[in-house]
């Protein structure tokens, strides 16, 4: 091994692949059918690989056959760089290859060295990080699920501590009772009318309309579009249901602004579904958890959020 010149001379060449690998399809000579083409290629000799060094660029042209039997011409362009380096590094650069690379020529071998696509370091700020952590924390998921569920209003507390114990509880009992003798549910509902729940706001305090809801501005106008946010849809109602029954059923959850019960135009009987507009979305949410699956009039009620009318 000839000794390597000291620092001041550009001592070793370095080849960096330039990532403009061109893959050109070379049209096959005979093209009547695919099989013909394959045979034609297997008969034909592939041109030998060429290597052209022009100044500081090295162009290697190779030919191969791809899976479809087409000839492929691969042009790799390398930039040859000369860098100054310390003696030891320069000496190491001149080491002959060994092991698995023993028979490889100078420069990177494309089968072991590749250049990846451009990637960037993404800089994260603390805020994003905090958000990410929230998403990923498995305990966060548990927080949403309830461990204790009230039998009356399905709220997140014990049945005995239910704030609707006095209001909703008797209704349920009454309904259960009336279910047993097989009476019509309407009668049960009217029976509960005797102990109609006291008109009590869920917070226990009067809230002026201007302050109701989260983002309500000063005053409410009559023309204002109904707030779909706090509307729930009740389905699987019996035909005998009346608006007063619904009023009674949903009143305990919060102030109701409007009840719409779909009725047949001719018979004036319920079509089996209704929309209830609450003033507050939280009340509506509680009503959904409380009454969904509630046995009413021998039918199991289905309560969910009403879809916005535009989608219907």
């Amino acid at each position: 091994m000839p000794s390597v010149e000291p620092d001041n001379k550009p001592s070793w060449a370095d080849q960096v692949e330039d990532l403009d690998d061109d893959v050109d399809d070379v049209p096959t000579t005979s093209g009547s059918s695919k099989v013909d083409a394959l045979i034609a290629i297997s008969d034909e000799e592939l041109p030998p690989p060429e290597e052209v060094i022009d100044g500081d660029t090295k162009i290697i042209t190779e030919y191969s056959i791809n899976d479809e039997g087409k000839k492929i011409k691969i042009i790799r362009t390398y930039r040859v760089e000369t860098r100054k380096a310390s003696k030891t590094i320069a000496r190491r650069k001149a080491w002959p290859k060994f092991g698995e690379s023993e028979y490889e020529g100078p420069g990177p071998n494309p089968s072991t060295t590749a250049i990846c696509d451009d990637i960037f370091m993404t800089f994260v700020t603390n805020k994003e990080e905090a958000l990410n952590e929230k998403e990923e924390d498995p305990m966060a998921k548990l927080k949403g699920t309830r461990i204790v569920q009230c039998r009356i209003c399905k709220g997140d507390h014990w049945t005995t501590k239910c704030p609707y114990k006095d209001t909703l509880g008797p209704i349920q009992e009454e309904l259960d009772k009336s279910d047993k003798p097989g009476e019509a549910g309407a009668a049960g509902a009217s029976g509960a009318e005797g102990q109609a729940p006291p008109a009590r706001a869920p917070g226990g305090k009067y809230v002026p309309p201007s302050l109701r809801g989260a983002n309500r501005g000063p005053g409410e106008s009559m023309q204002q579009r109904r707030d779909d946010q706090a509307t729930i849809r009740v389905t699987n109602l019996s035909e005998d249901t009346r608006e007063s029954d619904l009023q009674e059923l949903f009143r305990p959850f919060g102030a109701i602004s409007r009840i719409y019960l779909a009725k047949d135009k001719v018979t004036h009987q319920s079509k089996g579904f209704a929309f209830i507009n609450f003033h507050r979305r939280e009340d509506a949410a509680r009503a959904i958890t409380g009454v969904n699956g509630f046995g009413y009039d021998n039918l199991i009620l289905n309560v969910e959020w009403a879809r916005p009318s535009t989608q219907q």
Partner: protein
Amino acid sequence: MKPLMLQGHTRAITQIRYNREGDLLFSCAKDTKPCVWYSLNGERLGTYNGHNGAVWAMDVDWQTTKVLTAAADNSARLWDCETGKQLFQWDTNNAVRTCGFSYSGDTIMFCTDRQMGYNPTLDIYDIRAGEQLANNAPLLSIPIDGPKVTSAVWGGLDEYIITGHESGEFSQFDVKSGERVRNVKVHTKQINDIQLNKDRTMFVSASKDTNAMLFDADSLDHLKTYKTERPVNSAAMSPRMDHVVLGGGQEAMQVTTTSTRIGKFDARFFHLIFEEEFGRVKGHFGPINSVAFHPDGRSYSSGGEDGYVRVHYFDPQYFEFEFEF
């Protein structure tokens, strides 16, 4: 940045290391042939052929003349760096988990696993002494009672060896007496990697308990913690900036037994002092098993369970980035 992808291994990478000048990059994997590459252009210089099992760790001395490998074929081997010829082979009772050259390059250490009824031992040899090699009589052999050693480095001017254990403990062994000088336990699960900083006063540990931590190499005082959500397989300190890079990820085989999902095998950059993450680099499609900074701090490499080594040269944005505080 356009990373260089080195595809010389057929199985998961276990460790990568730069030599002192950083012109060569060494990689070993669960296949049997450790490789050496030119870090500048990703050209493979050669492979060290001879092992018959997974190679768990490797090291190179400061002059880049000798290479030491630790493998699961019950042997540790010494190679000539330039030619790839095997110089010596130590046969052990069971797999060799970790190995390292002392700073002087004259003494080596390696540590075996606990398997087949044999306790782990930490063996130290002076490779200049022919009789030690010929008679297989180590300069010092320290039996490890307790949890097995998963990672080890020389520390404190070659006066002691810092070992990281399966239980999350760190120990310091005196090289003269073979006594356990210090023992601390801060991590709660296995230590996967220990890497010293440039002046060898501190080391950063990577643990399965999802944290990486910074320790004083002399007193084993716990200094900083870098928290993530997945097991950390490797951590390295930048010699240029106050940065730490962490590589890790949930292994595919363990996704069903843990709560975290598969994916997100990013290399994560933390500020050394403020313990806050500021950057991520994507690319691997398996957990990152080993990361290493180039000694000049202008590039870093990562080797993953996917079998690839990626060499990244930082963009100017990385150097311009200022941590806000």
